[in-house]
Protein backbone atom coordinates (compact mmCIF):
# COMPACT_ATOMS: atom_id res chain seq x y z
CA UNK A 1 0.00 0.00 0.00
CA UNK A 2 2.88 2.35 0.78
CA UNK A 3 4.23 1.60 -2.68
CA UNK A 4 0.94 2.72 -4.21
CA UNK A 5 1.05 6.00 -2.28
CA UNK A 6 4.66 6.58 -3.29
CA UNK A 7 3.59 6.03 -6.89
CA UNK A 8 0.85 8.66 -6.44
CA UNK A 9 3.40 11.04 -4.94
CA UNK A 10 5.77 10.62 -7.89
CA UNK A 11 2.96 11.19 -10.41
CA UNK A 12 1.93 14.35 -8.54
CA UNK A 13 5.51 15.66 -8.57
CA UNK A 14 5.68 15.11 -12.33
CA UNK A 15 2.40 17.03 -12.71
CA UNK A 16 3.83 19.84 -10.56
CA UNK A 17 6.85 19.99 -12.89
CA UNK A 18 4.51 20.61 -15.82
CA UNK A 19 2.83 23.46 -13.92
CA UNK A 20 6.22 24.81 -12.87
CA UNK A 21 7.24 25.10 -16.51
CA UNK A 22 4.20 27.30 -17.08
CA UNK A 23 5.00 29.45 -14.02
CA UNK A 24 8.58 30.06 -15.14
CA UNK A 25 7.99 30.31 -18.86
CA UNK A 26 4.42 31.60 -19.10
CA UNK A 27 4.04 34.33 -21.70
CA UNK A 28 1.65 36.46 -19.61
CA UNK A 29 1.14 37.01 -15.90
CA UNK A 30 -2.22 35.24 -16.05
CA UNK A 31 -0.57 32.00 -17.18
CA UNK A 32 1.74 32.26 -14.20
CA UNK A 33 -1.14 32.87 -11.78
CA UNK A 34 -3.00 29.86 -13.18
CA UNK A 35 0.15 27.76 -12.94
CA UNK A 36 0.62 28.74 -9.30
CA UNK A 37 -3.00 27.86 -8.58
CA UNK A 38 -2.54 24.47 -10.22
CA UNK A 39 0.59 23.82 -8.16
CA UNK A 40 -1.27 24.66 -4.98
CA UNK A 41 -4.14 22.28 -5.77
CA UNK A 42 -1.58 19.50 -6.30
CA UNK A 43 0.05 20.68 -3.08
CA UNK A 44 -3.09 20.10 -1.04
CA UNK A 45 -3.45 16.55 -2.41
CA UNK A 46 0.28 15.90 -1.84
CA UNK A 47 0.05 16.97 1.79
CA UNK A 48 -2.94 14.70 2.44
CA UNK A 49 -1.20 11.77 0.71
CA UNK A 50 1.94 12.33 2.82
CA UNK A 51 -0.30 12.34 5.89
CA UNK A 52 -1.82 9.05 4.76
CA UNK A 53 1.63 7.51 4.36
CA UNK A 54 2.50 8.53 7.91
CA UNK A 55 -0.92 7.60 9.32
CA UNK A 56 -1.42 11.11 10.73
CA UNK A 57 -4.06 12.39 8.35
CA UNK A 58 -5.72 14.65 10.95
CA UNK A 59 -2.68 16.89 11.35
CA UNK A 60 -1.93 17.07 7.63
CA UNK A 61 -5.55 17.87 6.79
CA UNK A 62 -5.14 20.92 9.05
CA UNK A 63 -2.03 22.00 7.16
CA UNK A 64 -3.63 21.52 3.76
CA UNK A 65 -6.76 23.40 4.85
CA UNK A 66 -4.68 26.35 6.01
CA UNK A 67 -2.73 26.27 2.79
CA UNK A 68 -5.90 26.14 0.70
CA UNK A 69 -7.45 29.10 2.56
CA UNK A 70 -4.34 31.24 2.22
CA UNK A 71 -3.98 30.24 -1.40
CA UNK A 72 -7.49 31.57 -2.02
CA UNK A 73 -6.55 34.85 -0.31
CA UNK A 74 -3.34 35.02 -2.33
CA UNK A 75 -5.12 34.41 -5.62
CA UNK A 76 -7.66 37.11 -4.77
CA UNK A 77 -4.90 39.58 -3.88
CA UNK A 78 -3.02 38.84 -7.09
CA UNK A 79 -6.18 39.29 -9.17
CA UNK A 80 -7.12 42.53 -7.37
CA UNK A 81 -3.71 44.09 -7.85
CA UNK A 82 -3.41 42.98 -11.45
CA UNK A 83 -6.73 44.72 -12.02
CA UNK A 84 -5.40 47.88 -10.31
CA UNK A 85 -2.23 47.83 -12.32
CA UNK A 86 -4.18 47.44 -15.55
CA UNK A 87 -6.19 50.57 -14.73
CA UNK A 88 -3.29 52.72 -13.56
Amino acid sequence: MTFFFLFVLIILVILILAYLYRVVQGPTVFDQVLGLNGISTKAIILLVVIGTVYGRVDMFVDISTGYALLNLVGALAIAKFLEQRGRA
Partner: protein
Amino acid sequence: MTFSFEIPLLILLILTAGGAILVKDLVPAVFILGSYSFFLALVWAWIGAPDVAFVEAVVGAGLATVFFLLTLFETAPKDTRLHRPPPPWAALLGLPLLGFLLLYAASDLPKFGDPASPASVHISPVYLENSMHDTLTPNVVTSVLMDYRAFDTLIETVVIFTAGIACVLLLRRNQA
Protein backbone atom coordinates in the same frame (compact mmCIF):
# COMPACT_ATOMS: atom_id res chain seq x y z
CA MET B 1 11.85 2.18 2.57
CA THR B 2 14.14 1.67 -0.39
CA PHE B 3 13.04 4.69 -2.34
CA SER B 4 13.36 8.05 -0.65
CA PHE B 5 10.79 10.57 -1.78
CA GLU B 6 12.76 13.57 -0.56
CA ILE B 7 15.09 13.41 -3.57
CA PRO B 8 12.49 14.65 -6.14
CA LEU B 9 11.33 17.19 -3.55
CA LEU B 10 14.88 18.48 -3.10
CA ILE B 11 15.38 18.61 -6.87
CA LEU B 12 12.21 20.70 -7.17
CA LEU B 13 13.48 22.89 -4.32
CA ILE B 14 16.79 23.57 -6.07
CA LEU B 15 15.04 24.17 -9.41
CA THR B 16 12.64 26.73 -7.93
CA ALA B 17 15.37 28.46 -5.92
CA GLY B 18 17.55 28.82 -9.01
CA GLY B 19 14.58 29.94 -11.07
CA ALA B 20 13.65 32.64 -8.56
CA ILE B 21 17.18 34.02 -8.75
CA LEU B 22 17.66 33.72 -12.50
CA VAL B 23 14.30 34.86 -13.83
CA LYS B 24 14.29 38.24 -15.56
CA ASP B 25 11.09 39.76 -14.15
CA LEU B 26 10.05 40.51 -10.58
CA VAL B 27 6.46 39.21 -10.73
CA PRO B 28 7.34 35.66 -11.85
CA ALA B 29 10.19 35.75 -9.32
CA VAL B 30 7.60 36.27 -6.57
CA PHE B 31 5.49 33.39 -7.88
CA ILE B 32 8.47 31.05 -8.12
CA LEU B 33 9.52 32.04 -4.59
CA GLY B 34 6.01 31.10 -3.43
CA SER B 35 6.28 27.67 -5.02
CA TYR B 36 9.79 27.33 -3.51
CA SER B 37 8.54 27.82 0.02
CA PHE B 38 5.68 25.46 -0.72
CA PHE B 39 8.17 22.74 -1.67
CA LEU B 40 10.10 23.55 1.50
CA ALA B 41 6.87 22.97 3.43
CA LEU B 42 6.49 19.62 1.68
CA VAL B 43 10.03 18.66 2.71
CA TRP B 44 9.25 19.58 6.34
CA ALA B 45 6.05 17.54 6.16
CA TRP B 46 7.91 14.59 4.67
CA ILE B 47 10.63 14.46 7.32
CA GLY B 48 7.97 14.53 10.02
CA ALA B 49 7.73 18.15 11.23
CA PRO B 50 4.10 19.09 10.47
CA ASP B 51 4.18 22.18 12.71
CA VAL B 52 7.07 23.73 10.82
CA ALA B 53 5.41 22.69 7.57
CA PHE B 54 2.23 24.46 8.65
CA VAL B 55 4.09 27.69 9.40
CA GLU B 56 6.08 27.48 6.18
CA ALA B 57 2.97 26.87 4.06
CA VAL B 58 0.94 29.62 5.70
CA VAL B 59 3.62 32.30 6.11
CA GLY B 60 6.10 31.47 3.37
CA ALA B 61 3.85 30.34 0.57
CA GLY B 62 0.73 32.30 1.42
CA LEU B 63 1.41 35.53 3.26
CA ALA B 64 4.89 36.28 1.90
CA THR B 65 3.67 35.98 -1.71
CA VAL B 66 0.80 38.35 -1.01
CA PHE B 67 3.03 40.86 0.78
CA PHE B 68 5.72 40.76 -1.92
CA LEU B 69 3.06 41.41 -4.55
CA LEU B 70 1.53 44.21 -2.48
CA THR B 71 4.96 45.84 -2.14
CA LEU B 72 5.60 45.44 -5.84
CA PHE B 73 2.33 46.96 -6.95
CA GLU B 74 2.30 49.75 -4.37
CA THR B 75 5.85 50.95 -5.00
CA ALA B 76 7.39 49.76 -8.25
CA PRO B 77 7.05 51.36 -11.64
CA LYS B 78 5.19 49.45 -14.34
CA ASP B 79 8.36 47.98 -15.75
CA THR B 80 9.32 45.23 -13.30
CA ARG B 81 12.01 43.66 -15.47
CA LEU B 82 15.43 43.27 -13.92
CA HIS B 83 18.70 44.49 -15.39
CA ARG B 84 21.27 42.84 -13.19
CA PRO B 85 25.02 42.94 -13.76
CA PRO B 86 26.91 39.63 -13.94
CA PRO B 87 28.02 38.38 -10.49
CA PRO B 88 31.55 39.23 -9.37
CA TRP B 89 34.26 36.58 -9.50
CA ALA B 90 34.74 36.69 -5.72
CA ALA B 91 31.13 35.54 -5.23
CA LEU B 92 31.42 32.83 -7.88
CA LEU B 93 34.54 31.47 -6.23
CA GLY B 94 33.72 32.11 -2.58
CA LEU B 95 30.16 30.83 -2.33
CA PRO B 96 30.89 27.27 -3.58
CA LEU B 97 33.78 27.20 -1.12
CA LEU B 98 31.41 28.26 1.67
CA GLY B 99 28.92 25.60 0.60
CA PHE B 100 31.64 22.98 0.64
CA LEU B 101 32.67 24.07 4.15
CA LEU B 102 29.06 23.87 5.36
CA LEU B 103 28.64 20.38 3.86
CA TYR B 104 31.91 19.31 5.48
CA ALA B 105 30.69 20.61 8.84
CA ALA B 106 27.31 18.95 8.35
CA SER B 107 28.97 15.54 8.05
CA ASP B 108 29.69 15.76 11.80
CA LEU B 109 26.02 16.24 12.71
CA PRO B 110 24.14 13.26 14.17
CA LYS B 111 22.15 11.13 11.76
CA PHE B 112 18.49 11.96 11.13
CA GLY B 113 16.35 10.29 13.81
CA ASP B 114 19.38 9.03 15.74
CA PRO B 115 18.16 8.09 19.25
CA ALA B 116 21.66 8.68 20.68
CA SER B 117 22.00 12.26 19.44
CA PRO B 118 22.50 14.91 22.17
CA ALA B 119 19.12 16.55 21.60
CA SER B 120 17.15 13.34 22.10
CA VAL B 121 19.32 12.25 25.07
CA HIS B 122 19.32 15.39 27.22
CA ILE B 123 16.35 17.62 26.45
CA SER B 124 13.58 15.61 24.84
CA PRO B 125 13.06 12.92 27.52
CA VAL B 126 12.51 15.56 30.21
CA TYR B 127 9.72 17.18 28.22
CA LEU B 128 8.26 13.88 27.05
CA GLU B 129 8.15 12.41 30.57
CA ASN B 130 7.05 15.46 32.56
CA SER B 131 4.86 17.51 30.24
CA MET B 132 1.65 15.58 30.85
CA HIS B 133 2.11 15.76 34.62
CA ASP B 134 3.23 19.41 34.57
CA THR B 135 0.80 20.96 32.12
CA LEU B 136 -2.05 18.45 31.55
CA THR B 137 -1.75 19.08 27.79
CA PRO B 138 -1.81 16.02 25.50
CA ASN B 139 0.30 17.65 22.76
CA VAL B 140 3.94 17.99 23.82
CA VAL B 141 4.74 20.69 21.26
CA THR B 142 1.83 22.78 22.49
CA SER B 143 2.88 22.34 26.10
CA VAL B 144 6.47 23.41 25.30
CA LEU B 145 5.28 26.47 23.38
CA MET B 146 2.46 27.54 25.65
CA ASP B 147 3.68 26.50 29.10
CA TYR B 148 7.43 26.02 29.32
CA ARG B 149 8.17 28.92 26.97
CA ALA B 150 5.04 30.98 27.61
CA PHE B 151 6.83 34.34 27.93
CA ASP B 152 8.73 33.73 24.71
CA THR B 153 5.50 32.97 22.89
CA LEU B 154 3.79 35.99 24.46
CA ILE B 155 6.48 38.41 23.26
CA GLU B 156 6.46 36.77 19.82
CA THR B 157 2.73 37.32 19.66
CA VAL B 158 3.25 40.99 20.60
CA VAL B 159 5.82 41.35 17.79
CA ILE B 160 3.55 39.75 15.21
CA PHE B 161 0.57 41.82 16.37
CA THR B 162 2.63 45.01 16.01
CA ALA B 163 3.69 43.96 12.52
CA GLY B 164 0.05 43.28 11.63
CA ILE B 165 -1.00 46.73 12.87
CA ALA B 166 1.79 48.34 10.83
CA CYS B 167 0.72 46.43 7.70
CA VAL B 168 -2.93 47.42 8.14
CA LEU B 169 -1.99 51.08 8.67
CA LEU B 170 0.27 51.11 5.61
CA LEU B 171 -2.23 49.39 3.36
CA ARG B 172 -5.20 51.51 4.42
CA ARG B 173 -3.53 54.89 4.09
CA ASN B 174 -5.10 55.56 0.69
CA GLN B 175 -8.63 55.08 1.93
CA ALA B 176 -8.55 57.64 4.75
